[in-house]
């Protein structure tokens, strides 16, 4: 079991090793296996070579706005599916879940045409807007709210004269907090790590993954530089994972039981 974990951690450790060495030290056989003292030189080089600061900021903006929106709209839709009675509820829910198997990657050509028409190419909106609410989020929240919010609480709210949206705001949102945290984490990580669509639509206004891929795509790749970029791009996610890993693991396992 320890070997399995070592195997899964090693490549990340390795990127730390390479990014803290000089280029000469990396081109050695046998390879150097411990970190050196050049990490900060290499980080400075990354920021000099590409507009990495801008890319980091772009990714932060995209991931944050997508996360807030996904949590809000998924909880709203999840509330309706789990707790409200309306005609067509079941088929609509099935439809929402079914949408998650549609291979969206294959629709990128018209999506690109659409963005060009809207004048959104090279604008962050092109990446943010399509991700504002996800099927996974809706499903996840429907499952959670079904158990977490007692019907009596909602009825009591109604008797007190709450509107439906009032119930959402005052009863459902507070109750949804633990699940919202997990969903928010997943969404943030996914948005941060997204690559293919930003690559297509944001050629001159890169997010961090796109910037990283262009660092790596020279004809002779400078690996100390590239792996330093890798480390920088992974670091925010890694910090989140270190702090909230337990919730993330729990969230995956919870989602799995119902999935």
């Amino acid at each position: 079991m320890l070997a399995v974990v070592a195997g899964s951690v090693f490549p990340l450790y390795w990127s730390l090793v390479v990014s803290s060495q000089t280029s000469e030290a990396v081109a050695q056989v046998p390879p150097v296996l411990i970190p050196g003292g050049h990490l900060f030189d290499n980080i400075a080089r990354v920021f000099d070579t590409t507009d990495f600061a801008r890319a980091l900021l772009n990714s932060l903006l995209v991931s944050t706005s997508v996360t807030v929106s996904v949590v809000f709209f998924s909880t709203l839709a999840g509330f309706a599916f789990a707790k409200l009675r309306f005609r067509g509820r079941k088929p609509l829910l099935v439809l929402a879940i079914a949408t998650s198997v549609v291979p969206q990657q294959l629709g990128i050509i018209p999506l690109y045409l659409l963005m060009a028409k809207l004048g959104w190419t090279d604008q962050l909106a092109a990446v943010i807007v399509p991700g504002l609410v996800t099927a996974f989020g809706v499903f996840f929240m429907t499952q959670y709210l079904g158990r977490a919010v007692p019907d009596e609480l909602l009825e009591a709210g109604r008797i007190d004269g709450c509107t439906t949206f009032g119930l959402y705001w005052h009863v459902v949102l507070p109750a949804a907090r633990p699940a919202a945290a997990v969903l928010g984490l997943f969404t943030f990580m996914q948005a941060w790590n997204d690559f293919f669509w930003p690559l297509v639509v944001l050629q001159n206004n890169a997010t961090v993954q796109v910037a990283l891929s262009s660092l790596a795509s020279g004809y002779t790749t400078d690996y100390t530089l590239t792996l330093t970029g890798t480390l920088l791009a992974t670091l925010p996610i890694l910090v989140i994972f270190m702090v909230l890993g337990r919730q993330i693991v729990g969230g995956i396992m919870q989602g799995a039981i119902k999935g």
Partner: protein
Amino acid sequence: MTLPALSRLDTKGSPYLYVLPFFLLFGAFGLFPLIYTGYVSFNDWNLLDAGEHTWVGLANYRELLHDPYFWNALGNTLSIWLLSTVPQLLAALWIAHLLNHRLRARTSLRMGVLLPNITSIVAVTIVFTQMFGRDFGMINWLLGLIGVGPVDWQANTWSSHLAISVIVAWRWTGYNALIYLASMQAIPHDLYEAAELDGASSGQQFRRITVPQLRPTIIFTAVISTIGGLQIMAEPLLFAGTSTPTGGSDRQFQTAALFMYEQGFREFRFGYASAIAWTLCLVIAVFAVANYLLTRRIADDEE
């Protein structure tokens, strides 16, 4: 309107309002593009300018069927998909089995197993591409220690497929293991106790109880891995080390999705690329269904 009428409208009508954003966004940015891809694929749509296109009917599909690059890409996709999915799911089952025992530092172990999955495709592929380097790569160095000569991983078909499969499998094994683990924990304990009384070994318990009980989960992961695996394109794009989407000098590791990207966004042949997209969609659907039937069958036989 009277107050009760208003509140009736609120209870009857507002649920639709709450689920509307999802369906609107999915319709506009998920479903519409996919359907519109079908329309574009019947056109000669060569310019970035959206207005200029001519209807050509099935010409793009005819060309596709006779395009050796497409068949090559499809073959590569299937090869990489098989090489990554089968070992990955088996390993995930085994890891889940290990994790299911009472272990110390349970959470840390689970986090360690999941770590690859939270790392981006780009980061993972770059790190592995460095490790698979011909001259100074760690993997060739390790192979050298056991007397195997250096492999030029990018240069050959089999080696590049193997390397890309390792990258994919590394990223997803832990995730699948956690999904299996979750289902394993839902298996009633008395099943094992009864088996124990009947003298079943641990291996027999795994095959006769665990695997059949996990059947729905195994089917789920197999189908999901198929849908994802047949769309692989970021790994082969980045594994080339340069920004060319040909998947190596001889297209030895160009996948179908990467071929679509090349035709669409490098050659700007939107119509042709759309035909690739729809064909690939069809292939994915066929494989997902076949996979579903097959895994159901296999899991059945265990019972």
